[in-house]
């Protein structure tokens, strides 16, 4: 492994020898239909080939008017961005010297809401492809478990299947599901994750039913609103009492920005002071709870004209030890690790964000 120093003591196991300086917490591998079909048992294989899936992918709703949504150089011959391990390794892991990369296959966002057994078969096929075609080929990689989330008993089964494989480091949720994510329907899934010692990772996407304000017309609006869907998710988990039930549960919020968290916590605390008997299970300020349960990834990090304001906004959160670098490879808005954080970010904080925080959460290095 190119990034491994040669100097460690003889007694230490290889993993402990590594000086980790870069962890990428959001990488999107993409199995193709021809990768999944052979991993589906009948009748699901025939159904997949003859009917496909019913839940639309978000890009169909809001076309990405920027390189069709992918890094222009990330298309492998005959494949799709993220489908080819060699290209992913060359363009991301090797080129940028990534010590560890955490895969987030997004198929589960739509697959997980198909008919129960079909959803379970599809998600399992994705997980198996990730294991065989990505994790087995490079020990720098970790992954997130895709779940048939809308059928919790089957989702629990899928967590149990991979809980013994330390390369699967978290359990994937969409930011939009059939019910608000704090709903008790999903608690068995959260309990299974907590018992396996796995964080939840909520990645932007899934159902995009823009109720409340109505539907946006453009990707520009939909993309800016991703943060607001994540805000709704975090608020729901707190309001429904998930963390009173599962105090050890950790939740990573991916691809939704960070700077909104300070204002959200001020709003929650202010509301709580006026209506605490409406959420009687909340026995302390919501901001205190928020700071103990949530983590963030950087991409797409906010870019104020004055970079110092980004530093101030991160400090508003009081959670700078819970922010992790992410590139979002191979999507169009990929963030290079060399350019993500403005110079205004102090050196020590930079080191935590680029590697230290992720090492702590995922037990890396």
């Amino acid at each position, binding site marked *: 492994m190119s990034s491994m120093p040669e100097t460690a003591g003889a007694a230490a196991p290889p993993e402990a020898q590594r000086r980790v300086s870069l962890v990428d917490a959001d990488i999107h591998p993409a199995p193709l239909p021809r990768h999944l079909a052979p991993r589906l048992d009948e009748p699901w294989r025939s159904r997949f080939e003859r009917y496909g899936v019913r839940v639309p992918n978000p890009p169909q709703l809001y076309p990405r008017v920027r390189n069709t949504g992918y890094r222009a150089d990330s298309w492998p011959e005959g494949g799709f961005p993220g489908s080819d391990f060699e290209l992913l390794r060359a363009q991301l892991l090797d080129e940028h010297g990534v010590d560890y990369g955490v895969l987030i296959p997004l198929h589960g966002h739509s697959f997980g809401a198909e008919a129960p057994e079909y959803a379970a078969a599809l998600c399992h096929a994705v997980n198996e492809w990730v294991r065989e075609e990505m994790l087995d080929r490079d020990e720098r990689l970790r992954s997130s478990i895709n779940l048939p989330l809308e059928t919790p008993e089957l989702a629990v089964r899928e967590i149990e299947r991979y809980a013994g494989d330390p390369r699967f480091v978290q359990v994937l949720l969409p930011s939009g599901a059939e019910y*608000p994510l704090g709903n008790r329907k999903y608690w068995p899934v959260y309990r299974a994750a907590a018992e396996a010692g796995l964080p939840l990772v909520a990645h932007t996407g899934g159902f995009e039913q823009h*109720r*409340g304000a109505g539907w946006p017309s453009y990707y520009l609006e939909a993309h800016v*609103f991703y943060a607001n869907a994540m805000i709704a998710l975090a608020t729901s988990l707190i309001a429904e009492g998930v963390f009173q039930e599962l105090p050890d549960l950790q939740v990573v919020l991916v691809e939704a920005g960070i700077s909104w968290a300070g204002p959200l916590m*001020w709003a929650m605390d*202010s509301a709580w002071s006026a209506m605490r008997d409406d959420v009687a299970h909340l026995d302390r300020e919501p901001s205190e709870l928020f700071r103990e349960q949530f983590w963030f990834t950087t991409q797409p990090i906010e870019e104020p004209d004055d970079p110092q304001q980004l530093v101030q906004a991160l400090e508003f959160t009081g959670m700078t030890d819970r922010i992790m670098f992410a590139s979002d490879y191979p999507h169009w*808005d990929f963030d290079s690790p060399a350019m993500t954080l403005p110079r205004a970010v102090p050196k020590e904080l930079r080191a935590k964000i680029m590697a230290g925080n992720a090492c702590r959460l995922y037990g890396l290095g």
Partner: protein
Amino acid sequence: MRLEGAIDCDVHCAPASIDALLPYMDDYWRDYVANAGMTLSPTQTGTYPEAVSPAPPADVDALREQVLDPWGLQRAVLTCASAFDISRNPYYETALCKAINDWLRSEWLDRDERLRASMLVPTLDPEAAIEEIERIGGDPRFVAVLLPIRVDARWGTKRFHPLHEAIARHDLVLALHAWGRIGAAPTASGTTHTYFEDYLANSQSIAQGQVMSLVAEGVFERVPDLRVVLLECGFAWLPPMLWRFDKDWKAVWREVPWLKAKPSEYVQRHFRFATAPAQLPHDRDQTAHLAEMLGAEELLVFASDHPHRHGDGNLEVLLDVLGDAGRDAVMRGNAEALYRLAA
């Protein structure tokens, strides 16, 4: 807080019941109300439960006693959101809005010259909304058009552009106010179980979606004179939202070629935000940083949101940070310019 001489941009009033509006309805609608057993909740059904708000004043004497006289306000802009909580019948919605507007005029504006009001217009029928603006927009005491943030379609969408033109043509302000149609789920994943979560959705997502919509759809290129105020939607969330918005626009501008400037520039130029609910940090240094990010001295207009209670908002810390000139702008000057209130 010093309120003497202030302009309060969001003071609620509400008819005690539908009976108060019957004199302002024609025979068909009086009969419709009687036969259907229509009611009108002064607390808008679940919108303002007793725990967070008593019913708003139902007549001008109560308002004088609770607000105008003890606070020494220069002006108060009335918000009557009673039409937000209604059936899906667009003709009834129109009749209700007209009745409320006539009730506001006869029983409030005619009785206290400190008062101004936002007019109600139907949300389901843009043509009828424009007709209502044409009907009463010439009365200078109506200074704004009140629209809820929780609706079927975002306010920037193309179908509403003629409505925005009518608002600007009459030199009125588009006032977007928290809440809206009951039955509309506040999140992309449906309804909530707690008031706390439902309440937070106003400021933390729904209002932000409306700002995104009005800007992204090019409303301010089409209607360059349109002024917008957000009432009861908070404001501390604005800088991070605009940082995302500007960044995304730089990348996907091809999708919205009508935008000629950064999204944040449209917001600075066309939007003002009411100070309630304040939702600010306790910490003075953080408040000072936030005030700078916001451009708070130009952006904010004072609102008490009487009689609603929002908890410890720490507004006084922000006003203190702004100093005397900034405080005066927020408490009075900005609203005077926004609503064209200078005599």
